[in-house]
């Protein structure tokens, strides 16, 4: 584990460096996939920037409001680079509101970005960020595993443990590779436009596939963590949330896939497994 890098008098958290590298790589992937889908990459990156900045600024201001006297006496504390002094719930709400506001504004100006197309463009970036988070945890020793004596156990926090961070990094790498492979099947602009061929994916398919894979990884790998939040003293809360997210993602995958199939079946060269239209014949008199 390499939690910090000492550069002269400055101490840099390795996990923060990896996270920044992740942001840089993720924005690159998002821009590339936006171009592949004929979307405006600059606008999507602007959206990402606004959402992230809203989360950080509002999360910090909300936290400072909770501790108003301390921050009034020392306003520079607002700039402190620590996640401990953030109100994450308020930050997430602000991020969603800012994103919705910007999308609505563009739609009113006649430059809409369909939500499902946007989510598809973001999916490869999210897969990259998953890798960055896992690598950061591996460097810092956070998100540590449950005690276990296995040939591949690591000695961490005074015990032999599952290398849960390595499991999660490998899972994230696998998910990213699958998403990149799947992303090559570029969807057409509309679910009703099937001219691009049968191999194309319906809008939203890529994102919900990523969500299903990410939720599956969390559901499975949380079992090897040593720091899970427990409900009722035994049930690992992230697993319950992951199962709900997984079922939601699968339901959405089915929905977008059916909408595409239904549109394809109405084309003259419809796929062979389409239901045959029912024909009525007049009884012969």
């Amino acid at each position, binding site marked *: 584990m390499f939690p910090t890098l000492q550069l002269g008098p400055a*101490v840099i958290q390795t996990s923060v460096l990896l996270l920044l590298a992740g942001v840089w790589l993720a924005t690159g992937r998002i821009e590339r996939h936006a171009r592949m889908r004929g979307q405006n990459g600059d606008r999507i990156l602007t959206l990402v920037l606004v959402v992230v900045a809203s989360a950080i600024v509002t999360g910090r201001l909300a936290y400072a409001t909770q501790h108003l006297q301390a921050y009034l006496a020392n306003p520079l504390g607002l700039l402190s680079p620590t996640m401990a002094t953030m109100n994450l719930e308020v930050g997430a709400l602000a991020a969603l509101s800012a994103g919705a506001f910007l999308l609505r504004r563009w739609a009113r100006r006649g430059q809409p970005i369909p939500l499902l197309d946007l989510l598809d463009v973001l999916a490869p970036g999210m897969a990259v960020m998953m890798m960055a988070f896992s690598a950061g945890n591996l460097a810092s020793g956070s998100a540590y595993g449950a005690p276990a004596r296995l040939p591949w156990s690591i000695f961490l926090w005074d015990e032999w443990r599952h290398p849960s961070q390595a499991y999660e990094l490998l899972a994230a790498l696998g998910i990213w590779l699958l998403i990149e492979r799947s992303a090559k099947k570029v969807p057409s602009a509309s679910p009703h436009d099937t001219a691009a061929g049968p191999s194309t994916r319906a809008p939203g398919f890529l994102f919900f596939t990523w969500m299903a894979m990410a939720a599956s990884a969390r559901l499975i790998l949380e079992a090897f963590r040593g720091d899970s939040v427990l409900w009722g003293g035994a049930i690992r809360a992230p697993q319950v949330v992951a199962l709900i997210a997984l079922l939601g993602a699968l339901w959405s995958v089915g929905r977008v896939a059916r909408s595409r199939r239904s549109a394809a079946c109405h084309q003259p060269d419809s796929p062979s497994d389409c239901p045959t239209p029912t024909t009525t014949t007049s009884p012969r008199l």
Partner: protein
Amino acid sequence: MMHLAPHPRRWALVQALVALAGVAWIALSASPGMPQGGGPPPSPGQGFSAPELVLPDSDGTLHALSSYRGRVVVLNFWASWCPPCRAEMPAFERIHQELAARGLTILAVNATSQDTRQAALRFTEELGLTLPVLFDDNGSAQTSYRIRALPTTFFIDRRGIIRQVVVGGPLAGAVIESVVNDLLAEAD
């Protein structure tokens, strides 16, 4: 599996199987929880019990971390030659004076094995520090807390569990105060 997605009945079956398998896995991997009567094991990481340390102050009086159980403790490792350590010390002193009566103890552990007592004492006199300054002459506390960089600050709750670790500095007074206030507000 995804090729089943366009077929409603088959896909519903897939979802039902995934739900069943998911619930079974959650039940199988349920954590036995903490052992009765025991907290997390001691280790210098967030969520673990703070490892015990017993160190002398400038008078030679020994201070054991365990003797502060029931109070919120901020453990700050520092050295007199370290500029961020020097920059954040006045904030620790101010907060110590303001919040000691509410149950806060700030222990400033000088990394004496990398510093000298004279330089450390000169600095504490310059600032007129009243908070307990402890001396880690042989580096044993730095070893058990795995100090890799200075300053490093541990925020420990009333039960002796490390709730936050901040490597590097200087920590802003508002940050220290807000984290400490949250811990002081928690019930014992």
